């Protein structure tokens, strides 16, 4: 896969390397700012709330 991408990048070796780095950074940015914030609420490994949806807390506000 990576070899195939490398072969299809235009230009000389340094130009290809620069393009490859730029591509990697764009993908990293997309993951960080779009994909991860979207996935994060679906992966619940840090939910500290007592499950209050099944029943309500018993303390009425005075």
């Amino acid at each position, binding site marked *: *896969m*990576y*070899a195939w991408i490398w072969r299809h990048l235009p230009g000389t070796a340094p130009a290809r390397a620069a393009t490859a780095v730029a591509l990697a950074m764009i993908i*990293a940015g997309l*993951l*960080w700012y779009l994909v*991860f914030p979207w*996935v*994060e*609420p679906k*992966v*619940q*490994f*840090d*939910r*500290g*709330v*007592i*499950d*209050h949806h*099944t*029943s*309500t*807390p*018993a*303390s*009425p*506000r*005075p």
Partner: protein
Amino acid sequence: MRALIRGVGELCITAGIVLLFFVTYELWGTGRYTQDQQDQLSRQLAQDWDRPKVTTEKVKLGSGMALLRIPRFGDRFRYVVVEGVDLGDLRKGPGHYPGTAMPGEKGNFVVSGHRTTYSAPFNRVDELRDGDRILVDTREGQFVYKVTDQKIVSPREVSVTAAVPFHPKRAADKRLITLTTCHPKFSAAKRLIIFGELAQRLPRAKPGTPAGGA
């Protein structure tokens, strides 16, 4: 065939790198968001406290309602507690369970917070010992709670949020605080609960500019 195997291998390595990157995001990336929100909330809280009190005032969901400090975790540990415990509320900072007592009131002031992500306000609450102070500042003043107990319960143990924890039917008689967070770290299998009781009432501190600890 060889190209196929290599392709699968490359995909696996890529998936591993993306996964590690995601863990990095969870543990550090999410904290930046919380810091920004905390900065805004603490400015908002300072403004609100400077304005004269409106008697019909009701705290809106997602807005700051108190300032939480725990001296054992150092001077930089200060978080604005938001009203509400939905996903969006807890991303901004520790959240107060709507419907439970307000700070200093008779009953149970229940606050939930993240343990490992979103700036991890309650990361070290397991280190709290009986007698440790939990300071809660509101417009009315500073409420000094002292830790009385610590328990690990199931995520469905709603009775810890009752006015008298574990006795949902009993009427409020003491002024209590309860902190809830997940346990063990990096998991949501159990809940770690810290109990405390009001010990003292002092004039309040300034909300200040620094957000929650690093």
